[in-house]
């Protein structure tokens, strides 16, 4: 990665991939298309992580988001509806769509105008060991709490997905 042009090219490819995917997610009329576009977007974000030399996060993003959540979303799409009937944007919220775009424009203008410092790149180093130390060191309490949250989410999801049997018993 010595060549700054290549460097930049890689970034822009990844960024474009991500943003285009997100655009399809947001704008596509077909929910299935949206789902696959989300798949792509998440993949792109994983690439950006890698670009930012966050190797562990990139892998986690791949495993959890791309491998887990996207598949989940796909299943949900297939379970809940016909393939394309409800994907259309809600006409009542066209105005909101405009506002969202305005937000994006404003944010971009903000970024461009306020000369955000580029920042100093940290040295490139493997992060896995350091994050592991941090998780079991200063972040051990959030770590444990998150594990409990996961358990609760798991149980809650199972309970809810099982649904109500007839006769009133949960």
């Amino acid at each position: 990665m010595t060549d700054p042009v290549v460097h930049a090219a890689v970034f822009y490819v990844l960024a474009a991939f991500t943003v285009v995917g997100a655009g399809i997610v947001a704008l596509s009329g077909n929910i299935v298309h949206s789902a696959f576009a989300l798949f792509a977007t998440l993949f792109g974000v994983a690439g950006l992580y890698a670009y930012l030399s966050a190797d562990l996060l990139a892998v986690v993003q791949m495993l959890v988001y791309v491998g887990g959540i996207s598949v989940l979303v796909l299943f949900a799409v297939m379970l809940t509806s016909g393939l394309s009937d409800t994907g259309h944007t809600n006409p009542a919220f066209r105005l909101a769509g405009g506002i969202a775009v305005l937000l994006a424009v404003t944010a971009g203008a903000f970024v461009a105008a306020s000369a955000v410092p580029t920042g100093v790149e940290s040295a490139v180093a493997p992060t896995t060991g350091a994050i592991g130390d941090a998780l079991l060191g200063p972040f051990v309490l959030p770590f444990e709490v998150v594990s409990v949250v996961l358990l609760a989410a798991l149980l809650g999801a199972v309970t809810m997905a099982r649904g109500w049997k007839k006769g009133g018993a949960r």
Partner: protein
Amino acid sequence: MHEAAPVLQDFPLLFLVPLLPLIGAVWNGLAGSAIQRRFGRAAIHVPAVLLPAGSFAISLWAFLALAGQPHGTALYNHLWTWLPVGTLQADAAFLMDRLSGVMALTVAFVGTLIHVYSIGYMRDDPHYWRFFSYLNLFMFAMLTLVLGDNFLLMFVGWEGVGLCSYLLIAFWWRDREKAAAGMKAFVVNRIGDFGFILGVFLLFWGLMTTPASRPVAAAHGGKAAAAQHEEGGAGTCSATGGTSVTFRCVEQLLQDPVKRDRLVNHDIAGVGLITLVCLLLFVGATGKSAQIPLYVWLPDAMAGPTPVSALIHAATMVTAGVYMVARTHFLYTLSPVAMTVVATVGALTALFAATIGLFQYDIKKVLAYSTVSQLGFMFLAVGVGAYWVGIFHLMTHAFFKACLFLGSGSVILGCHHEQDMRKMGGLRKLMPITAVTYFLATAAIAGFPFFSGFFSKDEILWKAFDSGNILLPGGGMILWAIAAVAALGTSFYMFRSYYMTFSGEYRGAAGGAGGPALQAAGTDPAHGPHDAHGPHDAPGALDAPGALDAPGSNVGRGPLTPPPDAPGSLDAHGPHDAPGSLDALGSNVGRGPLTPPPDAPGGHGHAHVPHESPWSMTGVLAALGFLAVAGGYVGLPHLWHLPNAFEAWMEPVFAGTAERVTSAGFGHGVEWGLMGFSIVIAFGGFFAARWLYKDAANPVPARLLASGSRLVQGVHRVVFHKYYVDEAYDATFVKGSLGLSRALAFWDTRVVDGLVNLAGTIGCAFSFLQGAIDRVFVDGMVELVGRAVQDAGARIRRIQTGRIQAYVQGLALGALALVALAYLLAW
């Protein structure tokens, strides 16, 4: 040096003495009605008699234990700290020293006997259980009074006996007259109680506002204080403050010269503080012990059942005042004025009541006035500082007066609730045991030699004569003279009652053929000719004596009733007399409604003969009769060079003040002379009564009444009406307070209420104004706010659509606004 503070010996069972009757009272009071209905009367009276008997047993045990201790010991039982108020502390604690020991023993003993007696006397009363409950409650209160170790506990008992006397006098409360008698006793007692508590307050005010000059405990030092400290905190007196309310601590404090001087020399409105305290306490005593001027309730209290009369009004309650004065002897000896007042009031009451007793026809009224008179003797004794003699007379009086009362109860029961002595006579043959015991007790009260009353009364007379503490001119001799006349009267009217009741022939309401012969003899002095009112009497034939006689002839007999066999009966009073005659008027004075009671005299169609009472009554009479004779032997006169056990027994209690009781210094010769004079008095009264009233054979009283001069008439009239004291009280205090009440009521309704109403009207106007302001302005504002909120809510609630996306939109817009703000600010 004297030992004021007794050595306290713990006796943990002492509290049972008052407690046992209380248990009985509560038990019978709460469950008695049901028990009597289900299990009969025995289930009522067995516990009601056994519990006071247990009380007596424990008293006796304690008394014997006390007797085994050295002089100056007292049994003590501390239960709990009752009222710790600031530095003042009152404990619920009982103390039996030699004085309260004698009292408790007497009270428990006589009380138990009267309980036994009541089994027979109240046999037919449907409220049997209530009666026994009250009796037990009375025992509790009286024993608390006697054994309480401080002023406050004594006051509890003091009030308790007042309450019980009210309950018991008004026991037959359906009869308005009796209920009123109870009320009268209660109100009069309240007056006295108020004086008592005022005296206590004043005493403690005096003690607490005076600093002690030195620690009192150290002052008399020695063994008593040391032993006391070993006893521990419960029974000890505070060494510094005048803040304990126990008798012995006050006595100790008064040994401190500073405090004593303060009490003696501090004047309030020209009267020494100590004198004021003593007089106020004595007001309490006059109420409870029926002395002038508060004696009026006692004769009326005879409306109660006879055992009540015996228990409360002869043997126990009325002696509370005497006991209290003896208990607080350390106060009275400091004030010669108070002593003089006590002695004088006692002597005057003795004479006054004795004269009233001379002309009464109701057997219980005679005994009532005799009680008042004897209590006067006791106060005379304690007033001259002869405390042990007062208590001695109290004890002997408890025996013989209880015996007399119970004897009269036996007579009344035997004569079917007849109380008029003119309708008795000849009962000796019919009721021999009653007659004998009544005679013995009469002899005792009259002061026959070698009977118990002789020893105590003669000692009182001698102590009064010999007293050096009396401030009256002539010293104790005046009091002695008054008391001697009273004693003569006592002897006379008591034997008069005996002869009228027991000698001669039966003059009772024997309907049918037997009656006229007896009555027509016309020998009954006060009774004969005037009793023969009948239909054949001309309406105008009533002469003056007969009119005089009339009220008496109905006193205590209960409401007037037309007998069923009226036309032929010589006993027929009232309705058959001419309407408007003096008799008819008089016979209705102060009486209740004319309702026929079930046992109205003359109401029985068949002839009835008095009968002897059941064994439970006669047994008690025998026991009391024995004691009336023998009870005096514990206190033989010094003159005879025989041991006086009673005085020796009491000596340590009063040792602390003995030095302040002085003698006028008369020699033995005078004492012998007085004793002989006492005997002459006793026999004089006896022979006079025998001559006039035996067998109803002497015409003198009748002739005296019938044709006597204006003077005799006047005297008789005044004395017969009890000197019009009741009427005077009615005219002054009752009418006065009624008038005052009316005046105050007028003031209240016209002036005070007017002001109040005016203020109310103004307030109403203001309120109306304020209300208007409230409605228009305040409410308007409030409603404005409320409406604004409601409207705003109605509008704002539309935002809350339930659509997540709308919320997110708002969220995004908010975030956008924040970003814009930050952007603008940063710019």
